[in-house]
């Protein structure tokens, strides 16, 4: 960020704070439950309860409904909150809450202490569309097998599960190796799992395809320096209006990096045609392609 920037933004710091708080919650909840028998806050990001307010991850709930063919009121209500959040703010769960994001970011910061090459892993080995195929493949496999087994293996849930296993039973389960594999993969290719394979991220992306909050580019101010593309953890290019696509997870890294404040979060009304990414615009790829 340069000095001339009129409105310096600190979304990165805010986001790191949010990620840290979410991770601390994961650490704290099993301790409260085991040692103090406080079950007011309970669970992790697969299903979290704060008092009588329940949250259920939409992918998990959807697969449970699909495989068991049973509807259950509390499940639907619990799924409604994340769906509402995603439809308004987009994939913010991925960038602001998810423990895998926290681990990746912390790893990046730790490595940043030793090396200056910050953008070293910015390449795209696969087309972006892989994300949708990952979700589709996961749902089909779940229906073939008949159990929501892949939600059990989804890394964000696994982090919470492993923390619980360590706190409650003083042991780790072998599926925790998946978390290690995902974080190591991040070192090889930036956010490889989040970009191409995470079915939960894909589902939230589809839900948030017509989100209200999005990053908009002021092309009048933009000097096309390309910094925003370099910092984007998903390899999107805000200059090409890719921040309106279903892939963008509203992390705000590009907003922070912009030297001329050409990028900002904007509350958009998608019914208006003049907004890029609105219903009439071609730049938003349809999520089901």
């Amino acid at each position: 960020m340069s000095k001339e920037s009129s409105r310096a933004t600190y979304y990165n710091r805010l986001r790191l704070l949010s990620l840290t708080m979410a991770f601390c919650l994961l650490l704290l909840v099993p301790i409260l439950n085991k040692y103090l028998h406080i079950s007011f806050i309970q669970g992790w990001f697969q299903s979290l309860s704060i008092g009588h307010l329940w949250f259920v991850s939409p992918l998990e709930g959807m697969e449970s409904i699909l495989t068991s063919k049973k509807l259950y009121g509390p499940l639907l209500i619990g799924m409604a909150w994340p769906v509402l959040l995603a439809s308004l703010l987009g994939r913010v769960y991925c960038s602001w809450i998810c423990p895998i994001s926290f681990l990746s970011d912390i790893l990046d910061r730790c490595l940043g202490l030793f090396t200056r090459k910050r953008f070293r892993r910015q390449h795209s080995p696969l087309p972006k569309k892989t994300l949708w195929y990952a979700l589709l493949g996961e749902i089909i496999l779940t229906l073939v097998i008949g159990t929501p087994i892949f939600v059990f293996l989804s890394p964000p849930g696994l982090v919470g599960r492993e923390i619980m296993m360590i706190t409650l039973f003083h042991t780790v389960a072998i599926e925790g190796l998946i978390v290690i594999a995902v974080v190591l993969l991040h070192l090889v290719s930036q956010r490889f799992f989040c970009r191409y394979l995470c079915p939960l991220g894909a589902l939230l992306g589809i839900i948030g395809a017509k989100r209200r909050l999005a990053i908009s580019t002021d092309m009048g101010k933009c000097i096309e320096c390309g910094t925003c593309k370099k910092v984007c953890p998903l390899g999107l290019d805000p200059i090409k209006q890719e921040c309106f696509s279903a892939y963008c997870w509203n992390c705000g890294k590009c907003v922070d990096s912009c030297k001329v404040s050409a990028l900002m979060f904007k509350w958009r009304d998608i019914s208006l045609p003049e907004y890029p990414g609105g219903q009439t615009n071609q730049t938003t790829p349809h999520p089901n392609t």
Partner: protein
Amino acid sequence: MRLAAASLGTIATCWLAPKPSPAKSWISSPVHTNILRPPGAVPEEIFPARCIRCGRCVEVCPYQAIVPLDIRKGVFAGTPLIDVKKIPCYLCMKCVEVCPTGTLSRIPQAETRMGLAVIDKHACVTWNQELALCRTCYNVCPFKEKAIKLDQLRPVVIEEYCTGCGICTHGCPITRKDGEKAINIEPIYAFKPVRW
């Protein structure tokens, strides 16, 4: 340090422990004698499909009786189980209230049917020996005089009231040669057919 050693030990045992038939344990239900689902569980046919493996029942159990399965159990990975020989269910009914999917349906304590206690009259000292007067199962039963009664000082299980909590199995002092007790919980309700 100790934690690291323990975790390494777990990983090591996962790979080194002899497995009888891993492929079979991937698709056949882990529920059998004395290995039960938590209270209010839907039948085993639908259980792995409905459970989202969120682990909240595991976390809320104050006795840590509920244990999640790991990846080696295939499609049953992540589902909760109670090994009543280690820690029985004390029927506090906390788990049924936190289940977000209705896999553990909300039922009152007395309507829990995790299984049925079955006395092995050949192994039970009170049944097969004239002199011994053990009645531990009768004493520890939370539904004493309803679920377990004494018939001429020998324990008898009343099927109508037995919740299958396994406290009797946990308390039984007799261990058979195959590792089971003289009173065992048979999960007879877990394999009911489901109407889809």
